[in-house]
C-alpha cells in the first residue's frame, strides 16, 4: 500500500509489548505460580513470581492468548516488580489498561486475566508459605 501510515490493531505500547514481551518465560524456582483461564475466550495465562522480604523480586509469564493478553501479561509483570504482597492484593487490571495506553473494549478482559493470574500466584505463594509455616 502506497500510504505511509502504519495501521496496527492495537496502539504502539500494546504492539511493543506484544512484539517484545518483557519477562516472558518461567522462574525455575518460583515462590508462587498462578495459572488462570478466561472461560470467555479460552485464553490461558501463567505468572510465576520470585518473592523476597514480602516484595516481588522477579516475575515471568507465559500466555496462550491474543495480542492484548500477551501485552497485558508483559505489562503486568513489569508493573509489579518491587511491590509488596499487600500492594499486589490491591492491584487492579485498570492499571494494566492505563499503562498500556488503553485496550479495545472487548479486550479489557485480557487485563482482568493478568490481574487474576497475579493474585492466583500470590495465593499460591501464601498457601505454600502457610504449609511451610505449619
Amino acid at each position: 500500500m502506497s500510504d505511509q501510515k502504519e495501521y496496527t490493531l492495537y496502539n504502539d505500547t500494546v504492539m511493543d509489548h506484544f512484539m517484545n514481551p518483557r519477562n516472558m518465560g518461567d522462574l525455575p524456582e518460583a515462590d508462587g505460580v498462578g495459572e488462570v483461564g478466561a472461560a470467555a475466550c479460552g485464553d490461558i495465562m501463567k505468572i510465576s513470581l520470585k518473592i523476597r522480604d514480602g516484595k516481588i523480586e522477579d516475575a515471568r509469564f507465559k500466555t496462550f492468548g491474543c495480542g492484548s493478553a500477551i501485552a497485558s501479561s508483559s505489562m503486568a509483570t513489569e508493573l509489579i516488580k518491587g511491590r509488596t504482597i499487600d500492594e499486589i492484593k490491591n492491584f487492579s487490571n485498570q492499571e494494566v489498561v492505563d499503562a498500556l495506553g488503553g485496550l479495545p473494549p472487548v479486550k479489557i478482559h485480557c487485563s482482568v486475566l493478568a490481574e487474576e493470574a497475579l493474585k492466583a500466584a500470590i495465593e499460591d505463594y501464601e498457601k505454600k508459605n502457610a504449609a511451610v509455616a505449619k
Partner: protein
Amino acid sequence: MKSVYLDHQASTPLLPEAFEAMRPYFTEAFGSPSSLHRFGLRVRDGVKTAREQIATLINAESPDDIIFTSGGTESANLAIKGFADANERKGNHIVLAATEHPSVINSIEYLEKHHGFTSTKVPVNAIGQIDPEAIRAAITDKTILVSVHLVNHDIGTIEPIKEISKITQEKGISLFVDAVAAAGWHPIDVQSLGCQLLSLSPHRFYGPKGVGVLYRSRKARVTSLIHGGVQENGRRAGTENVPAIIGAGVAAEVALRDMGDRIAHVSRLQKRLYDGMMSRIKFIKLNGPVPGPDRICNSLNWSTEFIEGEGQLLLFDLHGIAVASGSSCVSKSLKVSHVLSAIGLDHALAQGNIIMSLGKDNTEEEIDYVVETFTKIVDRLRTMSPMWQEFQEQKIDSVISPTGIGQSFTERAASVSGKPAH
C-alpha cells in the same frame, strides 16, 4: 516489506477492467435509472447489460431473474425473509445447514422471533459436509424453504447441492443456495443445481463492494424487504448503486472467461501451501476437506495446536501477510466460529485457527514465504505458551497427534478456568 494478501474470502481488489467500466458512471453517466431522460436511459442500458452478464455467469433462465441488492448479506436476507413473507401461507418451517453464514442464520432467527417461524439446523460431519438424507429427514409438512450454502465461508467445504435439490424438488420445496463463498471460484449453473434462489457477492471475485445479487427463479415468489420505490421490479427499493452494478457485470464476465485459469492457478498454490504447511509444521490440522473435489480451490483453514489465532494473525501481519481467523479473540462476540463448533473441533484447536484464502495474483514465491514465516510464528508463540510448556513436560497431551500421556489441552484449560464467561 513484503505484502502478501491471503484473505480473498474477506474481499478482493477490484479488477482494473471493472474499474474502467465503472468510471464514467460516477461523474458523467450519473443519472438515476428511473429517470426518463437520456441521463437516466443511458444508465438503465448499462444496468441491463450488467444484469445479462450476471445471468450468464450462473446460467439463469433470464436476466429478469437477477435482483441487485447492496451485498451478499442483503441477498441472503431477501432470499429468506422475502421468500418467507411471500410464502407464509404455505408453511412456517425452514431447514438449514448448521454451518450457514450468519446472514442466513440470523435472518432465520429473526423469522423465528417475529413471524412465528421454526427451523431445523441440520448438522454436518467432521469436514463440514451435510448429508442430503438428513435434509430429507428434517423436512416437515410445514417446511417451505431449505437453505444450504454451496461452499462454506470458513472451512471451504463444497456441499452436495444437486443431491439436496433432488429432494427439495421431489417435495415441492424451494432451495436457497448461498453461493457467496463459491461464485467466481467454482462453476455455478442454477439450472443444473436445481435451486430456486441463489446469492452471490461480486466483491468476492474482483467486483466492487456495495452490490450483491439474488437469483430468483420465476418459480419462487419473493417480496421486497426494503420498501419504497419500484426499482428492481418492485423487489428492492432505492436508487440503484449503478457504478457497482456495472462493475459487478464486468467482474462476472471476466470471472466466467477466466474461471478455468483462475481455478487452475489457485488450486496449484493451494496444493503447494497445503504440502508446505503439513510438512513444516508439527501439530497442525487442516479443517474441512483436503484439497480436491470436496473443497473450494482457494482456501485453507488451519488449526495449530498450543497457540492462539489472533497472535498468529498479528505476527503474520507484521510480516506483511494478511490472513483471517475464526478464533474467538478475533470476533467481537468472543465466540469461536460456529462453523468450527459445528464440525466438532476441540475448543483449543478452534482457538488456534487461521484461514488463508488465495487469489489470482498470489505467486508460488509468496506461498513459500508464508510457510517460512509460519514456522517462525509458531515457534515464537509456542515459546510463550504455557500449554506448549505443559505438553513438553508431558502434563497434557496433543489432540492432533495424541501420545496417550494424559488430558488434552482443552480438558486442562477447563480445569484451570473455573469462571463463567465474561
